[in-house]
């Protein structure tokens, strides 16, 4: 057939009509819209039966009750547990992110052994026998006291189990990382006697005088504190914040008393002096050396010169404080853990004592630690007895770092629940000190800065995979023991650190094995919590005490009467650099989750830069958003300038909790660790690192 013009057009038109009428085109468009959105790699979460399980969060000392929502036994969501005596349904961003810790592929998945610069995977049997052999050699050499322990936990059965191991091994060298709990315990020891805790009854106080405490930004038990603050308006309770920057707590306060950084203690002592001068105090301390010291050193004029608070304002504040029905003074700048001085804590607590606020509703409770654990007598052989009775190498973890860095002294070190190579000031020095220890064993769940420097890692199951008693801490005016329960079987080849310790003790044999004769940590917990186990496992918690303790404890002002000196920030510079605690950033041994990092403001973290707060009035030629070089005696860092009207001129605020250096692109390699820029200033007497800040200079990059 010949194709002429006519038939060509006819065919063409016919084809066009056919295509237009056929459903193929519509079908293809429809399909393509479906295909473009049905990505096979977009996960389809498995559906199933919904259940809820109760547990306790042990990420921070807050010890909140949590409710874990599960689908077919698979945890999908964490929420606050209703009616739990600490957080009553509330939760914080870190606890809610708990599942990101659980499933994080950056977790340590098996036991590891350092080989040169690399870690190699080993089995649990190998790991335990390797550590047991090394420790055995140390014992054989007759220096069991050269085993050290750095830990973050200082309460509960895990803390005692580690202590027991150290004892049975024969070493007194246990050191706690600085925490609000340890600082409060030191304060209580200095003023009221050893082995006591302090609890602040914020729920019932009608006048809270906070000396820089970030009450709604992570101080103490964060959710409980946020709730106490939220109920404040209904109770018509006042909050007065002593601070040098507009923290969220200062912002929530009824009044801000602006002080120069590091002079909070002077203001507290100044208020004490006013109360004494006006004879508005309870008890008889007028004759004491403390009163004489106050009258001499802390006259309103002198305090004004030191703190920058007008004498009249301070007197008015003192009067307001003493006239309130249930006033309480709260110590602990920021979260109250690092960079605190005993002088400051004691000064604030002295104010509470003078105002007769000890063991009063809405005041400060001087409490005995929860006494619910009964371990059987530790079996100690001669080596253990000798070693354990020797003097400790240092008084605090800061002094230990100094000692190790200068002349060593430990042949092995356990690290549990602590990340000293990040969380202490001047981590470079901590790393050098760590390198002087021959053999380091980390019980970490994540390959953090400290675990990276260990020789053996015995990976710990996280709180969602383990059974444990969790004691409320953090300045709470009640003692609640909660039961953290395993929500899932361990995701990776990890163990409960309690189990790891028991296995290790048994591998060591002899008296140490006899001290750890349990089959598992779970069996140990059931045994040592004997008295309360039934309630604990049934209700999930036991309220040990939530009433003001009876009687008024004696207060010994000797420490303060000796007029301890304030820590002076190191170095030179026009500015004072201070770390700033943010609720959305985890600190200490805890690492922020990807969700927590996601919600950090771009005024805190911008790309890879930490943003520093600076008052525009003292920014000089620097403009908002500039990249600048921040220099201190300890080092320098590139930072982004963030203008903030809410900070005292001359002060630079830098967020704490950034600048992690390990391999996890979601949470590490972001910003600068402020501790890198601050050098420790060890306070004589307490051994605390009292460096609240450091002198710094800023210049345009």
């Amino acid at each position, binding site marked *: 057939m010949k194709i002429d013009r006519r038939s060509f057009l006819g065919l063409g038109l016919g084809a066009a009509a056919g295509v237009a009428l056929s459903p193929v085109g519509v079908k293809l468009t429809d399909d393509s819209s479906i295909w473009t959105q049905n990505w096979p790699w977009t996960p389809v979460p498995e559906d199933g039966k919904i259940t809820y399980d109760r547990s306790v969060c042990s990420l921070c000392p807050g010890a909140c009750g949590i409710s874990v929502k599960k689908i077919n036994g698979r945890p999908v969501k964490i929420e*606050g547990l209703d009616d739990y005596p600490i957080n009553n349904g509330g939760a*914080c961003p870190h606890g809610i992110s708990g599942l990101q810790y659980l499933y994080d592929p950056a977790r340590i998945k098996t036991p590891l052994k350092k080989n040169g610069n690399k870690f190699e995977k080993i089995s649990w049997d190998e790991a335990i026998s390797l550590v047991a052999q090394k420790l055995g050699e140390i014992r054989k050499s007759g220096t069991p006291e050269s085993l050290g322990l750095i830990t973050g936990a200082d309460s509960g059965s895990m803390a005692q189990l580690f202590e027991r191991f150290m004892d049975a091994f024969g070493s007194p060298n246990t050191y706690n990382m600085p925490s609000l709990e340890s600082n409060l315990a030191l304060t209580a020891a200095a003023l009221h006697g050893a082995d006591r805790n302090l609890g602040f009854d914020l729920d019932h106080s009608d006048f809270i005088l906070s000396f820089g405490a970030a009450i709604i930004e992570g101080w103490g038990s*964060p959710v409980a504190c946020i*709730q106490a603050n939220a109920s404040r308006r209904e109770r018509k309770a006042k909050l007065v914040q002593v601070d040098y920057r*507009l923290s969220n707590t200062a912002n929530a306060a009824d009044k801000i008393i602006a002080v120069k950084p590091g002079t909070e203690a002077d203001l507290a002592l100044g208020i004490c002096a006013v109360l004494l001068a006006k004879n508005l105090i309870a008890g008889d301390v007028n004759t004491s050396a403390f009163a004489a010291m106050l009258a001499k050193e802390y006259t309103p004029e002198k305090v004004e010169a030191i703190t920058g608070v007008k004498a009249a304002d301070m007197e008015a504040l003192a009067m307001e404080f003493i006239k309130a029905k249930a006033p309480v003074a709260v110590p602990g700048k920021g979260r109250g853990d690092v960079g605190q001085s005993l002088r400051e804590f004691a000064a604030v607590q002295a104010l509470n004592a003078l105002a007769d606020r000890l063991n009063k509703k809405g005041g400060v409770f001087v409490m005995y630690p929860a006494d619910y654990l009964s371990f059987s007598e530790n079996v100690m052989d001669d080596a253990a007895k000798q070693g354990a009775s020797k003097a400790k190498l240092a008084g605090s973890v800061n002094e230990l770092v100094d000692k190790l860095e200068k002349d060593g002294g430990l042949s092995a070190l356990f690290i549990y629940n602590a990340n000293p190579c990040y969380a202490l000031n001047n981590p470079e020095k901590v790393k050098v000190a760590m390198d002087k220890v021959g053999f380091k064993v980390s019980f970490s769940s994540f390959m953090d800065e400290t675990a990276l420097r260990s020789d053996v890692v015995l990976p710990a199951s996280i709180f969602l995979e383990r059974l444990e008693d969790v004691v409320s801490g953090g300045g709470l005016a009640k003692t609640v023991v909660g039961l953290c329960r395993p929500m899932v079987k361990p995701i990776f080849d990890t163990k409960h650190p309690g189990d790891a310790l028991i296995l290790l003790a048994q591998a060591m044999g002899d008296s140490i094995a006899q001290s750890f004769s349990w089959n598992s940590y779970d069996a140990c917990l059931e045994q040592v919590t004997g008295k309360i186990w039934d309630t604990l496992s049934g209700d999930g918690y036991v309220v040990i005490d939530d009433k003001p303790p009876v009687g008024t404890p004696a207060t010994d002002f000797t420490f303060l009467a000796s007029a301890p000196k304030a820590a002076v920030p190191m170095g030179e510079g026009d500015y004072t650099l201070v770390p700033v605690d943010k609720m959305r950033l985890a600190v200490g041994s805890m690492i922020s989750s990807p969700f927590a990092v*996601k919600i950090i403001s771009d005024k805190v973290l911008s790309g890879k830069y930490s943003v520093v707060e600076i008052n525009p009035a003292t920014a000089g030629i620097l403009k908002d958003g500039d990249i600048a070089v921040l220099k201190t005696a300890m080092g320098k860092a590139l930072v982004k300038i963030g203008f903030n009207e*809410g900070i005292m001129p001359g002060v630079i605020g830098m967020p704490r909790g950034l600048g992690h250096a390990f391999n996890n692109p979601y949470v590490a390699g972001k910003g600068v660790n402020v501790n890198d820029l601050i050098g420790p200033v060890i306070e004589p007497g307490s051994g605390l690192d009292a460096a609240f800040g450091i002198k710094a200079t800023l210049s345009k990059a």
Partner: protein
Amino acid sequence: MVIDLDKCTGCGACMVSCMSENNVPFKEDESDKKLSITWMRVYKLTNGKSFPEAEIVYLPRPCQHCGGIGDHGHSPCVSVCPATATDYGYDTGIVSQIYTRCFGCRYCMGACPYHARHFNWWDPKWPEGMENYLSPNVSPRMRGVVEKCSFCYHRYQLAREQAIVEDREIEEKEYQTACTTACPAGAIVFGDLNNPAHKVHQIVKPDPHPDPMNHKVVGKSRNPKVFRLLERLGTNPKVYYMSDREWVRKAGDNYLKGEWENVKTHHGASSSHG
């Protein structure tokens, strides 16, 4: 929903609770907030003064679930969606988002005055193993679609199913959004604005009649401390904010010189219907 800005501490629990409830993904770098998907975002506002007079307020912003002009359901985003991927629920007052219908034109993002909508420029990626915590109640989104806060609609569905089975009304506490339950300060109150027994209604006291000064506005609060964002546009959001502080209430809109005085005196004073 009513958010008490004087109670909010800016802790961010609502944001995290929302993300973990609704399978919102995360990227390695989330510091560019224009590209950061946050159904609930907490903004920080300042009063512009210097220390120690400076003040801040945190303003949590979920989708405002606008009822549109006159509260007839023509929300800004709904009116522009060519795919009917977002719609107004006349039964619930919730603005929906159907991801499989959305083809990513982003008109709704341009139309939304509250920046409540986010676009998936990339496929979501969870680090290996982390997809294990995803919830089956909310479908993960794919590249090329817009997403936003749903007032935890799946929680409403679950509560509704239960209520139907038991042949009763949904109780106030049965349907609460993830941000509400998470808030440690108790700053967020959620419920049925039209139900006088619910706390939200008691706080807001919404005026059922159009505002006599501006007929686009319906449901204005009769509580002088309560306001809505950009209220006079007539978007009629279902999220109300509450503050004792005047500068905070003023920050709910951009006022020309002198305008605020009129609004301030009129605010909450539409007592003709009171």
